[in-house]
C-alpha cells in the first residue's frame, strides 16, 4: 500500500505540533542540566505524575485539561523545590553516577506511586473541549495539538526572554557559566539552583496539562518521555532555544511518519537509532556549537 500524499502531509503536521510540545517537555530538563549539571532521570516521571494530577483535576473541575495549569504549575514548582532540597542538594558535589542513581530513585518512587494509586490502566480526560479536528483542504488540524503547540512556543519564548533579558536570567546564565565566580559576584548560587530546579519541574507541570488535552496518563509514560526528552537534548545540543525547537520538531516528525508509514510499535525505535548515530558523529548535537 502506498500512502497518499495527504496522509503524509497530515502526519508531518501532527509531528510538528507534537514536536513543539516535546520542546516544552525538554526545556525544563535542558535548564536543569545546563545550569546545574544535574542529570535528571526522573524528568519524564514528573510529566507522568503531572498527567495523572491533570486527569483528576480536569475530571473533578469539569474543565479543559489546559486550564489545570493554574494549579499544576505552582504546585510543581513547590514539588520541584522540595525534591531539590531533600534529594538533589545533598548530592551536588558527588560523582555523576551517584547523582543519576538518586534521580533514578526519585523516578522509581514516582512511577510506582502512580502504579499503586492508579494501577496500570491508561486514563484520558473526559472533559476536553479542544479534542476535535478542523478540516482544511488537504489536511485536518487537531485543535488540541495546535493549541498546545502554540502555547508551548509562547512559553519557550517567555523563558528565553527571562534568560536573556532580565537580571534573574543574567544571574542564571552567570551561574551556568561559572558557579564559583558567580558566587563571588554576589549571586546566591543556592537560591538560583532552587529556582532553576523548581522552574524545570514547573514546566513539566505545564507540559502535562497540555499533553492531557489529547494524550493519556499511564504509569509508564515517564520512562518513554524521560528518554525522549534526553534524546531531544542530545540532538539539539545545549544552550539555545532554536536548537531545542529544531530537534524536537525533527523527533516529532520522525515519530509521526514512522507511525503512519511503518508501524506505531516502532515509533520510538527510529528516533533512538538516529540519536545513537548522531551521538557518535556529533557529540555536541546537530545544532550545538563547537
Amino acid at each position, binding site marked *: 500500500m502506498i500512502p497518499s500524499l495527504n496522509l503524509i502531509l497530515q502526519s508531518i503536521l501532527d509531528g510538528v505540533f507534537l514536536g513543539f510540545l516535546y520542546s516544552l517537555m525538554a526545556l525544563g530538563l535542558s535548564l536543569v542540566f545546563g545550569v546545574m549539571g544535574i*542529570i535528571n532521570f526522573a524528568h519524564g516521571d514528573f510529566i507522568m505524575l503531572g498527567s495523572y494530577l491533570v486527569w483528576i483535576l480536569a475530571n473533578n473541575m469539569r474543565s479543559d485539561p489546559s486550564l489545570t495549569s493554574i494549579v499544576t504549575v505552582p504546585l510543581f514548582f513547590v514539588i520541584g523545590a522540595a525534591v531539590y532540597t531533600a*534529594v538533589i542538594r*545533598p*548530592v551536588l558535589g*558527588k*560523582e*555523576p*553516577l*551517584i*547523582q*543519576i*542513581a*538518586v534521580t*533514578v*530513585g*526519585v*523516578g*522509581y*518512587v514516582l*512511577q*510506582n*506511586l502512580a*502504579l*499503586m494509586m492508579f*494501577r*496500570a490502566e491508561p486514563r484520558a480526560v473526559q472533559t476536553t473541549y479542544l479534542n476535535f479536528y478542523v478540516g482544511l483542504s488537504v489536511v485536518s488540524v487537531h485543535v488540541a495539538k495546535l493549541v498546545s503547540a502554540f502555547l508551548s512556543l509562547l512559553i519557550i519564548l517567555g523563558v528565553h526572554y527571562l534568560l536573556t533579558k532580565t537580571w534573574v536570567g543574567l544571574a542564571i546564565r552567570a551561574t551556568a557559566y561559572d558557579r564559583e565566580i558567580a558566587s563571588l559576584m554576589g549571586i546566591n548560587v543556592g537560591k538560583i539552583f532552587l529556582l532553576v530546579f523548581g522552574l524545570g519541574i514547573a514546566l513539566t507541570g505545564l507540559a502535562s496539562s497540555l499533553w492531557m488535552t489529547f494524550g493519556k496518563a499511564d504509569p509508564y509514560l515517564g*520512562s*518513554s518521555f524521560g*528518554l525522549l526528552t*534526553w*534524546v531531544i537534548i*542530545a540532538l539539539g545540543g545545549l544552550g539555545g532555544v532554536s536548537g531545542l525547537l529544531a530537534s524536537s520538531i525533527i523527533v516529532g516528525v520522525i515519530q509521526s511518519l514512522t507511525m503512519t508509514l511503518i*508501524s506505531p*510499535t*516502532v*515509533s*520510538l*525505535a527510529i528516533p*533512538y*537509532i538516529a*540519536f*545513537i548515530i548522531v*551521538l*557518535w*558523529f556529533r*557529540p555536541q548535537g546537530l545544532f550545538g556549537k563547537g
Partner: protein
Amino acid sequence: MDSRTLSSIGLPALLVILVGMAVPFLVGFNQYYVLLALQSVVMASIALAWNIIGGYAGQLDLASFAYIGLGGILATMLMMNYNVTPWLGMFLGAGISATLAFVIGYPLFRFGIKGVWYALSTAALVVILHEVSIMVLGPFDYYIPFVEGWYYLRFRTWENLYYFSLVVLASIISLNLYISRSKIGYYLKAIREDEVAAEAVGIDIRKYKLLALVIYASILGFIGYIYIVSQRTFSYNTFSGPQSVYVAIIGIVGGLGSVSGVFTAALVLKIVEEYLRGYLGGVLPGLHLLLFGVLLIAVGILRPEGLSTLTDTLARKIKTRVRGGARE
C-alpha cells in the same frame, strides 16, 4: 597464579555452592521456595555480571535485558524450533550478545561516549530491541512446550536447574574476583576513578571498556536461557527497560565493584520483593519497587559506597575466623 590467590577466588565460590546446595533441603523441596531460590540466584548472577561493566569500569549500563533477551530468546527458540540443546544454545546466546555488545560498544567507546550519554545510549538500545521484537515476535507471550531432561535443561521440579544455576553463579563470582585481582581489574578501576588520568598513564581505555562490556554481555547472553526458563515465558517484554534499571540499582545499592555487597543486595532485594508482593501485592502493586526507590535515594545520599563496607567487614571477619581455625 599462586595458591593464595587461587583460594581467595575459589573459596567464596565453593562456599556459595555448598550453602546453596543445602537450601532445597532446608525448605523441604517446597517448589515455591526452590523457584524463588532459583530466581534469586539468577538475579545475583545478572547483577554480578553488571558489576564488571558498572562496578569495575564505572559505566552506567542500562541495557542488561537487551543481552539477556537476545541470548535467551535465541537459545530458547533454537530449542523449540530445531530441538537444539541449550548446552549449545546458551553458548550461541553468549556469542550473539557479545556480538551485539561489540557492535554497539566499539563506536560508543571509539567516539568517547561516556557518563550520561553512555547510559542513555544503552537505555535506548533496550527500547529499540523491545520495539523491533514486537514486529519480529508479534505481540504475544511464548510458552515453552514441556520437554524434560538434561538435554533440555528442563525438569519436572526446579531443583536440578537450581543446582545448575548455582554452579553458574559460582563461576561468575570467581570471574569477578579474578578480574578484580588481575591487571584488567586494576585498569578498569583506574578508568572508573579518573578516565583522563588512566589514559595519561598509558591504559588503552577504549580496549578495556570494550572488553568489560563484551564479558558482561556474553555472561548475560549465556544465562538468558536460565532466566527465561525460570520465568516460564518470554515475549517482546523480555527486553525490559525497567528491569535493566533494576539491575543497575542492585549494583549501586550493593556497592560499585563489591562482589559480596552486590551478591547480598541481589538476594535481600529479591526476598523483600517476593515478601511484599506476596503479602501486599494484591493491595498495593509496586510497593516493593517504591521502597527500592527510597532505598536507592538513601544509599546515594548517605552511603554512596553501598552495602559493601558492611559486607566487606563481615567477609573479613569470616575469613580470619576460618584462617584462625585452620591454624589451630
